[in-house]
């Protein structure tokens, strides 16, 4: 018998797959730049999901074939995309009507830090001299019905990203609903941070050591 390679934690693709599994048929979804973009390719078959990109497209499709890029058909990350049948274009005020008016069901965002009560910091490390840039993040967390964060559990230097209180400037207060990391899936609720699922090779102690906030294990 060949022993399976032991492994700790989920890969980025597995994390995105976990998010994708939680997106329901018919959902209107906005995906942040970077890791969140992986989610679109992983939604289970049979579910029809409509992607919103805040620069003015509802019904965003996959990237175009090479050579068929249109620099006037891009997503919020300024990458070339396509539009599905049934898509439509609109201006920025209408686009943020969708966001601020609670019409988008799910937004998946990256994070620098998430606090115990769901505060999110994801736009600035607050370093003096850095060029601040916020884009649509504050509108998204203020307006979208459900905010999912997808992020490594720790920074590259091993610091926890899930903390009692954010030290970086906030994007929004009490806005995060669920956190998907390489180690666990954690709900943010009135009871605090509730661990819903742990990745292979992760146990309570392991997780708590890498988390800067109290965790609840139901």
């Amino acid at each position, binding site marked *: 018998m060949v022993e399976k390679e032991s492994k700790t934690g989920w890969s980025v693709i597995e994390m995105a797959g976990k998010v994708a599994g939680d997106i329901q048929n*018919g959902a209107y979804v906005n995906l942040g730049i970077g890791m969140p973009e992986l989610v679109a390719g992983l939604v289970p078959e049979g579910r029809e999901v409509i992607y919103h990109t805040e620069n003015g497209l509802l*019904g965003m499709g996959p990237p175009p074939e090479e050579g068929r890029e249109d620099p006037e058909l891009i997503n919020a990350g300024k990458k070339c995309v396509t539009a599905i*049948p*049934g*898509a439509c*274009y609109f201006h920025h*005020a209408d686009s943020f009507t969708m966001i601020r*008016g609670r*019409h988008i069901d799910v937004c998946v965002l990256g994070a620098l830090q998430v606090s115990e009560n769901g505060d999110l910091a994801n736009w600035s490390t607050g370093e003096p001299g850095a060029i601040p840039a916020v884009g649509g993040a504050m509108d998204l967390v203020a*307006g979208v019905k459900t905010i999912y964060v997808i992020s490594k559990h720790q920074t590259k230097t091993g610091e926890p990203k899930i903390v009692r209180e954010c030290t970086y400037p906030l994007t929004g207060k009490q806005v995060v609903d669920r956190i998907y990391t390489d180690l666990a899936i954690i709900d943010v609720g009135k009871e605090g941070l509730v661990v819903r699922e742990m990745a292979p090779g992760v146990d309570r102690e392991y997780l708590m050591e890498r988390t800067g906030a109290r965790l609840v294990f139901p």
Partner: protein
Amino acid sequence: MIDKIVESSHKAVEEIFDGAIVMISGFGEAGSPIELIHALIDQGARDLTVVSNNTGSGHVGLAALIENRQVRKMICSFPRSANSKVFPELYKNGEIELELVPQGTLAERIRAGGAGIPAFYTPASVDTPLEEGKEVRVFDNRKYVMEKSIRADFSLVKCRAADRYGNLVYNKTARNFGPIMCTAAETTIVQAKEIVELGSIDPEAVVTPGIFVNRVVNVSDPADESRLVAENLRYPW
């Protein structure tokens, strides 16, 4: 699969509950979803607050809904017209409430409701009786009144064509309040003269993106309100 098409007007309005706030599109008869309104009369929900520019004509459509005593309060800009008899009579007898709102303020309050803007300032109605009770504030040496957004439990809207995602296009000046009302309700219910294939509406020309629409019913031959009024018809027939 996403499919917002439902099989009948009655099915489309079945969830409307007593006491609901209901927006109804239309400017006069243009854009008024008369079949959805008649379905709501059959359905019978009462104690409604209705947001609509006018109060209907004759004894059909919105006027019939009011006449059937389903409406507790109207929020509108112009509650009378040549052929409106029902509302004026109930109003004079104190049997229906009226919140009168300037037309542009009404439109903007609905748009704000859909856009997550709880309140805004407008110059319309400053120094008139309609500013009474409202906060007045000066910006750049000019007075403005603060107006609050309006949201509804349901919007009933008429359009020309829809697809299964709920993308809509309208017909001429029947567009009026439809697009903004679609954005401002928990549940938006649309009657479309035509259901078209996904992708057959030019994505550059969609007026209401499907995200704002919950249910669509095909009413391929909608009644012409002014003809019903001229024939002095009443609903229920």
